[in-house]
């Protein structure tokens, strides 16, 4: 089976609100151009296209259809779509290259969260019979998870503030970040609760955004870039949706995916998809990442959370570190669903 490498990555700026349409076209057109520039490829060189997005984010059926206009999809293209974060679209594209059906693929994700009330919309991911009718918002659910860890002594509110402060500081070097700044944890702890036990800094912002990643077979990748980021493992798993039956302070699906993907302490950099501060700690623990691993040098999802591309961006950022020659072995994690229900882990190495 063919090895697969990331050879290009571009993202739209993470912003609170764009004027863009919910079909993503305005955010996608420039970043498609950017990855074609990076890779020297054009749309006719792409063997397979795959995207991730959500109708409920846009508020109407088939909202992803118009996004293919941004490609200029005629003559017709070989294309597919997942109603998931585009990290899972990347997984589908990885399959196509791995089996030798194509040797290049372009993966994109987009979402305009500002079109609706995100934390209320996300309640529709819950059991539709006994939970969604109560409209438990995504922040409330995360708060339940955070408190379980606090009261079990797994983390403190100060630990959470330190996660936030570190991500904000790191985001100062990320021109695409929505939030950044030199803040200290103590100051953050002085701010009021938004959803006790969560403060504003514990919660990823509402973000409009999009991202694109170009994949190629390892063989083809060497012709495209100097240091392709070869995916040495990519795995994903899901946990039970029944929140009340799970130990919410752990993430067995992350642990299993990480183990299968070859996650270990030898990764230099990890980009973790954690929309809440405590979730970064859960994921970090599930993946067994020690203190030597640099976590979220981009500032992570806490400084910009474009729904349906935030997971793909983690893979793009982890790859970028290799493409730029900053690291030899990196890890990316993506999540989907309430309280870290579904998780994907990819390990990348310099090819």
């Amino acid at each position: 089976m063919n090895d697969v490498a990331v050879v290009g990555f571009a993202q739209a700026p993470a912003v609170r609100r764009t004027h863009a349409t919910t079909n993503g076209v305005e955010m996608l057109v420039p970043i498609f151009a950017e990855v074609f520039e990076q890779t020297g490829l054009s749309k006719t060189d792409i063997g397979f296209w795959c995207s991730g997005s959500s109708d409920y984010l846009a508020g109407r059926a088939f909202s992803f259809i118009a996004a293919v206009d941004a490609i200029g999809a005629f003559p017709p293209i070989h294309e597919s779509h997942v109603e998931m974060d585009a990290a899972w679209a990347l997984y589908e594209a990885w399959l196509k290259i791995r089996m030798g059906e194509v040797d290049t693929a372009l993966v994109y994700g987009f979402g305009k969260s500002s079109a609706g009330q995100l934390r209320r919309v996300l309640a529709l991911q819950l059991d539709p019979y006994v939970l969604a009718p109560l409209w438990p918002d995504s922040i409330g659910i995360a708060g339940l998870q955070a408190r379980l860890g606090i009261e079990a002594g797994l983390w403190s509110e100060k630990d959470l503030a330190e996660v936030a402060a570190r991500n904000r500081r790191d985001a100062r070097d990320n021109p695409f970040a929505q939030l950044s700044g030199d803040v200290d944890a103590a100051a953050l702890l002085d701010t009021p609760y938004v959803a006790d036990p969560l403060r504003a800094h514990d919660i990823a912002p509402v973000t409009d955004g999009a991202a694109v990643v170009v994949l190629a077979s390892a063989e083809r990748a060497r012709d495209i870039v100097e240091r392709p980021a070869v995916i040495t493992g990519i795995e994903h798993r899901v946990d039970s949706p029944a929140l009340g039956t799970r130990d919410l302070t752990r993430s067995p699906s992350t642990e299993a995916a990480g183990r299968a993907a070859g996650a270990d302490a030898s990764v230099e950099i990890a980009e973790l998809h954690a929309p809440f501060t405590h979730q970064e700690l859960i994921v970090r623990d599930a993946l067994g990442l020690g203190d030597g691993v640099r976590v979220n040098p981009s500032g992570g999802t806490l400084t910009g959370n474009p729904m349906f591309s935030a997971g793909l961006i983690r893979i793009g950022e982890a790859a970028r570190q290799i493409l730029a020659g900053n690291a030899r072995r990196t890890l990316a994690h993506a999540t989907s669903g309430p309280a870290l229900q579904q998780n994907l882990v990819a390990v990348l190495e310099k090819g």
Partner: protein
Amino acid sequence: MNAAATETSEAPEAPLSAPLNVGFDYTRSVGPVLGRFVNALRERRIVGVRGSDGRVHVPPVEYDPLTAQPLTEFTDVADEGTVVSWSWVAEPLDAQPVQRPFAWALIRLDGADTCLLHAVDAGSPDNIHTGMRVRARWADEPVGHIRDIACFTGPDSPAGPAPTAPPPPVAERAEGEPVSTVITPIHLRYLHSASPEESRYLRGLAEGKLIAQRCPACHKVYIPPRGACPTDGVPTTDEVELPDTGIVTTFCIVNVPFLGQRLTPPYVAAYILLDGADIPFLHLVLGCEASEVRMGMRVRAAWKPREQWSTTLENIGHFEPTGEPDAPYESYAHHL
């Protein structure tokens, strides 16, 4: 649905946006396991189901999370229990069960091994803590729905019932029959944005103009203009004002009424290719019998009175025949 166009941005040329409200009262058949649960609620009882590992799940799960096998061993649990975790909601959202500040809580009911997620009407975050005992406050008239549990209350909860979201509609059923369907209203509000190119066109419509744009790559004339030419992936640019005359390429006659319909059937929904355009759009054809509408028929826009104009193609009430000879089939065959 509310399609009234409201300009929300201060800059005159910012893209247009308008509310898009999407709502439906979903009818959910519950099947045997959840059916048992909601019918018990109607009697102010809570039932759980025993899983393969012996744990009692509340609410019951239809399939075991460990083995995926169907679960059938029901057992009653108490309507009181212990808070296992909680988070505070300072400003309740639409349709949340308690419409004043409250807590979400994971509650392990006495006799259950898993937690139920529900609202606790605690009044203040000072009045709730993990380990606290809470009890269900039942709705005045249980109907067989999770909202039959209005909320939970603790020892220091405010006196008197909390303001609640309106109760869900109740599904019709025959006298004496158990509840088999629950209704869940899902009403969401969005702000829909037009692209910059489409906004230019919509503002033209408000002035009675039909503004198209040409793709800089393929030179085709698009109306409405596009944020991305569908074949070239670049925004359309060069502006072209089109006349309000054209032809019907193809059409159908809508005879069927349906939910949410804004026009009264029968009506002719036709693809109109304006003179000078390279792509047709859908509109109405009136001014003749539906049976007289033909492919290739020449039509002209019938504009609504100017005072009714806004940034919408609805400024054109319909298209109507001009009486000119039909366009030859060959002239529009490549637009079908």
